[in-house]
Structure formats: C-alpha cells, structure tokens
C-alpha cells in the first residue's frame, strides 16, 4: 500500500515538473480594490489586449498568467507579489500599478534576484532612480517625465504665471508635481500653495475652500475616485478657475466617468504618456485592438494611460521572451539581458531603457475637448520625443534637486 502511495506521489511530481516545462508562469498585479479600482481594471484590459494582439505562445511554450489584486498601498502590493511567488510559483512578475507600490515591489525584487520583475504601470521616480534593483525593468516613464512640456505650455502659451496645486499625498504625485515645478518655475512661474490630501479622501469641501483665489490656474494631481469626488464637489462649490491636470487626472478613467462633474475639465491642459486623439498609426491600431477586445459597455471609449502602460509592459515581456525563446535557465540571465536592451515600438512611441532600466520615451501635452456628443477626449497639443529620467538635466544638477516630496523641488530655476 505504502509503495503504491509512493508511486502515485512520484508520478504526480514527475507530471507536474513536465507540466511546468511547457508553461511559463507570470504573476500580474493590478489595483482591483479601493480608490484606484477603475485604473486597475483598465490596466488589465490593456494587458488582455496585448495578449490578443501578440498571442501567448513563446516558441513551444505557453504563457500562463495569475492575477492578484492590490489597493494601491505598498503593503498590499508586496503581499500580492509574495503570494504569487510563494503560492502560485510564478517565474516572472508584471507588477505593480501605483507609485508607492512600485517602490515597495522594487525593494522586494532584491530579495528574489533570480526572478524577473517588469513594472506594469507605476510611476514614482524613486523606484528606478534611487538604488535600482538589477532585476526590475520599467517600460513606462515616471511621473516627472509625463509632465514634460506642461509647464512650458502653461507659461508661454496660456500665460499662467501663478498656480496652486492639489495632489494626493504619495510618491507618484510628488513626482508629477516635481516635473511640473521644475519646468514651470524654471521659466519664472510661481506656485503659491501645494496642498496634499490622503489617497482615498472623499470630502474635499475644505480643500476646495482653502484654494487661493488669486492664482491663474489650479493644478490637480488626483486620480480615480478622488478625482471624481473633487470635481463633483468643486462644481457644487461653484468653482470656476482654470484647471491643469496630472497624467491620471486627464485620462479616460476620469473623462468617461458617470455624471456631469467631469465637464469642468473641458479646456484643461495636461501632459501624459499618451494622447487620446494622436493620429500615429501605431496608436490608432492599438485603440482599435482595445475597442475590439471588449464590448463598448465593458471598456472606455479609448484606452486609459494604465491600459497603455500594461499593454507596453506586457508587449516588452513577450517580445523579450521570444527573443530568448523562453529560456529561463541560469536565473533567467538571458531574459534579463534581452529586456535591458530591447527597444519596443509601443503604441505611444518608441521606448528603450537607460542604464537604470528606466524607460526613455515620448511625452504628450494635451488639452481636453468635447467630441460634440458629450464624450471627452485629450487632444494632442505637442509631442515631445526622447524624454529621459533626468528630464534633460545633466546627472549632477539633477541629483542636487533632491527626491520628489511634498516640498521638493523648490519653486526656482535649477
């Protein structure tokens, strides 16, 4: 009896190793809970679109994906990643979505040097700028890169001289305000106040009341439910200032939310890693693939920044895996080398990595327009290619500015 049992166990073990050989297991995390739920859902749509376009085959192996949910907090991300590695035995991670999560997962990646981590969409500067993990690759730009061009457009074309900012109190928005402030203040603009609200704030009435009256525009660095709540209450309070938006504020996640509060955003200028109405054929093809992958009521009219990022990172991973023919031997050394030097033709422009494995890509200055049927889109104003992490500054000057935080950078020319 015991011998039979042993034989069965051995057979099981053998079959499971044989099984593992033709599958490559990839763990994916997205914020499917909390304030950023809508962002996570659309990120996953981008991921699925990439699989529809590129397929799951790597040579004679097949990709298998395991999805775990987070809520934009760093501990939830680490918990999800750990579960994927320890329980689901994934070999590659496509994670995470949000800024603070990114910093935590990057640090966690160092404890698993044998695995490969491809960032899904997170955009805090610190993730790849400070003490980067050798096995962590980011194929999207960071929050500061995504603001390139906005300060100049606001100052020179719109004539804004003095602005105030409202942002969620965490690393990604610090990075966004960092990018904005360097450019806007560098030209001579002033930022008269910076308000920070906790992620998940519902009642913005007091924040709105505390906005200064004597500014040309108010910059909003909010996302998901926070952005919708802010706009709703801003409308109720009768707010009429010019608005400027961060990358996840002026995005389909907000522009196609229900209710009419979003109409306050028409005419708002913003900058991001994409623009809804870009005419580039690669972008148009991606939009079409996204629209074809889901019925209209289960998606946005046009992919959000998160969908684009998830698409890009999934694409980079699949192409790199194909280049090495799915060879994960020797602690995935070949895959890591391939990822580090691959250059992808992403929907939002060419992307390649720098020595910190951080994306260098294309940025877009946009303005929100109504398409005449009540749907809002971001229209291209300017396309800026080859934006790197130091935003064109030389490394030494950039290092002197300090890391993005509530008060860094100071509003001056560096």
């Amino acid at each position, binding site marked *: 009896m015991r011998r039979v049992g042993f034989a069965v166990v051995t057979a099981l073990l053998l079959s499971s190793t044989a099984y593992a050989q033709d599958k490559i297991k990839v763990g994916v995390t997205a914020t499917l809970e909390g304030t950023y*739920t*809508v962002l996570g859902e659309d990120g996953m749509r981008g991921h699925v679109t990439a699989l529809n376009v590129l397929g799951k085959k790597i040579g004679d192996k097949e990709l298998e994906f395991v999805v775990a949910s987070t809520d934009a907090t760093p501990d939830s991300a680490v918990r999800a990643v750990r579960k994927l590695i320890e329980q689901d035995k994934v070999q590659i991670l496509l994670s995470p979505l949000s800024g603070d999560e990114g910093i935590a997962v990057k640090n966690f990646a160092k404890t698993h040097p044998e695995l490969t981590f491809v960032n899904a969409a997170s955009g805090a500067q610190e993730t790849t700028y400070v003490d980067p993990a050798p096995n962590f690759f980011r194929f999207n730009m960071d929050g500061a890169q995504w603001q390139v061009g906005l300060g100049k457009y606001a100052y020179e074309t719109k004539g804004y001289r003095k602005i105030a900012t409202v942002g969620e109190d965490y690393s990604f928005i610090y990075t966004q305000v960092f990018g904005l402030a360097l450019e806007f203040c560098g030209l001579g603009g002033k930022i008269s106040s910076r308000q920070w609200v906790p992620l998940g704030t519902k009642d913005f009435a*007091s924040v709105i009341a505390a906005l200064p009256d004597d500014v040309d525009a108010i910059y909003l660095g909010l996302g998901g439910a926070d952005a919708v709540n802010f706009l709703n*209450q801003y409308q109720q309070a009768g707010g009429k200032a010019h608005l400027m938006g961060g990358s996840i504020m002026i995005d389909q996640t907000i522009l196609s939310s229900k209710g009419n509060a979003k109409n306050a955003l028409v005419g708002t200028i913003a900058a991001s890693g994409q623009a809804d109405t870009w005419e580039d054929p690669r972008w148009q093809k991606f939009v079409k693939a996204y629209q074809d992958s889901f019925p209209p009521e289960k998606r946005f009219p046009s992919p959000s920044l998160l969908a684009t990022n998830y698409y890009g990172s999934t694409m980079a991973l699949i192409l790199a895996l194909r280049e090495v023919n799915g060879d994960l031997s020797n602690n995935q050394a070949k895959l890591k080398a391939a990822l580090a030097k691959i250059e992808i033709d992403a929907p939002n422009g060419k992307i390649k990595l720098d020595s910190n494995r951080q994306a260098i890509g294309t940025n877009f200055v946009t303005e929100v327009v109504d398409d005449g049927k009540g749907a809002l889109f971001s229209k291209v104003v300017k396309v800026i290619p080859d934006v790197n992490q130091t935003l064109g500054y030389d490394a030494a000057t950039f290092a002197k500015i300090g890391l993005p935080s509530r008060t860094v950078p100071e509003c001056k020319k560096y």
Partner: protein
Amino acid sequence: MSRFIERHAIWSLIILLGVALAAWLIFAVWPPGLEEAIGRKKVFLSAVFNGITLGGLYFLVASGFTLIFGLMRNVNLAHGSLYLFGGYVGYGISSATGSWILAFIAAFIVVAVIGVLLQLLVFRRMEGQDLRQTMVTIGLSIVFADLMLWAFGGDFYQIQTPAWLIGPIQLPLMTAMKSSGEAVFLQYPLVRLVIFCGSVVIGIAMWLALNRTRVGMIVRAGVDDREILAATGVQIQLVFVLVFALGAGLAGIAGVVGGTFQSISPGEDTRFLLASLVVVIVGGMGSIPGAALGALIIGLAEQLGSVYIPTYAIVVTFLIMVLVLALRPQGLLARR
C-alpha cells in the same frame, strides 16, 4: 441645566468660554494678526460648515447603527454594506427616472426590506449570541461587498444633483472686509446645506418618535429590559423587525446622500462602517443624541484636521476615540 452648572461650575465655565470663542470666530471679522497666524477666515468658516454637514451624513448612517444596537444588542457590522447598497439603488432610480427625491424613497424602502430579511433570516436565529452575530455580520459584509462589486463593477457612481441645488449660495456670514469697506460674505454649496437640514429634521423626528409616541415608548422599554417587555405581552419580535427596517432604511438614505455630495464605489462600505463605529463609540452606544454629538465631533475633527493639520487628519479622529474610551468608556452621552 442649572443643576449641571451647580455641580460642575468649572466645566460650565470652560464650555461657556468655548462657545463664546467659537461664536466670536464665526461672526466677527478677524483681525489681520489672526489671519496671518491661522489663515483666512473663509477657510476656517468653510471647514466648520463642512464639518457640520459631514456630521449630518455620519449621523444618518450612525443613528440606524446605534438604534439597532441599543434595542437588540446586536453589532451589525454589515451596516456599511446597507449604506453602499442604498447608494447604488438611489443611483439606479435617479438615473432611470431623473428624480432625486424618488431615489431617497426607493433607497429607504429597498434597504429597509433587506434589513427585515436580515433580521428574520439571520439575527433571529442567533438571538443573544453576540459573538456569533458579529462574526456572521462580518462574513455577510464581505459577501455583500463582492456581490456588489460583481453587479456594479469598480466604477464610481455619482447621483446627479438636481439642477436647483447646484452651485453655491451666499450666507449672511462675513468672511472679510474689502478695503472699500464692503463686506465679503461666505459662499457655500447649497446642496450640503439642504442635506444637513434634512438630517436635522430626521434626527428630531426620530427623537420625537422615540420620546413622544407609544411605539417609541415600547422601543425605549425594550432597550432597558427586553425580557420584562416581552412578558407584558408586547410582540417584541415585531418591534425588532420594525427597528431593524428603520435603521437599515436610514443607512439606505445615507447612501443616496453620500452618492450625491461625494461618490459611491467599492470600499465605501467599510469606510462608513468604521465612521459609524467611531461615532457611536464617541457618542455612546445606543443613544440617538449621542450619535448626533459624536457625528458632529467626528465631522468637525475630520474637516478642521484636513485644513490645519492635513498630514495627521486621520489620526485626530482616532485620538478623539481613544480619549473618550480612556476618560468616559461608555461614551459621552450614554445613559448608563
């Protein structure tokens, strides 16, 4: 009142001074020195008003919670789910019919029916077993949250504010004096004031119903001693069902309110459950005036905190709870 002053002379003085200071801060034009020290008066006044109106919303949620607890000794941890579901129902009705008022009525009725079902199918079967009820309601809240996520998705829903409530109105409170001597008055969102008035009316109606009607008398008697009340021939189970329906219905109404001046989305259920827990702990479990006072304190603390100490705003709420638990563990206005 006069007995309170005789017994606690020093406390009365402190309270009186506090009220006088608050009145001065609200009505007087601030001297420039003060504006420099703590910011513009407009910001302060708005924060106070926001705190009070937010307190109104918290009161709506917490009053149902505390009513159910007071009578049935049942900590219903699925109360937040009732709030969220009420919001979704209200959204559905208001977007289908375009009527904001109808959304309130529908949310009240639908959620009250769910409350009745909960009482009949769940709580009645485990009467008097506090721990089991608590565990079951935690379980139910998780199940409800996932069901709602499945049905409504992760999207944010906002209930359309009717056109006549959009925009600010001018309140007769001066915020500043222009150099020309012209007074600047406070502009405040009308919808928040209307909602606040609504919750005051509901609060007073509940207080009157509890203290001036026969049913209210039965409920109060039930709070004091269920067994004796049942022994006098009152159909206690019927009273339980009615109270549960009312408490749940109030949570449903609160959901519509929350969906109007904030938004509803997954996660709101636990946020409002936590808020009502804090409110009733501060105010006193089972006491309606306690819920009102607790809601006011927590609302003000949140809003003033978010303006003056934004980083630690969340801590303030819990600090208040800790202080109350340390100094007066039964809650500020608890009866026993």
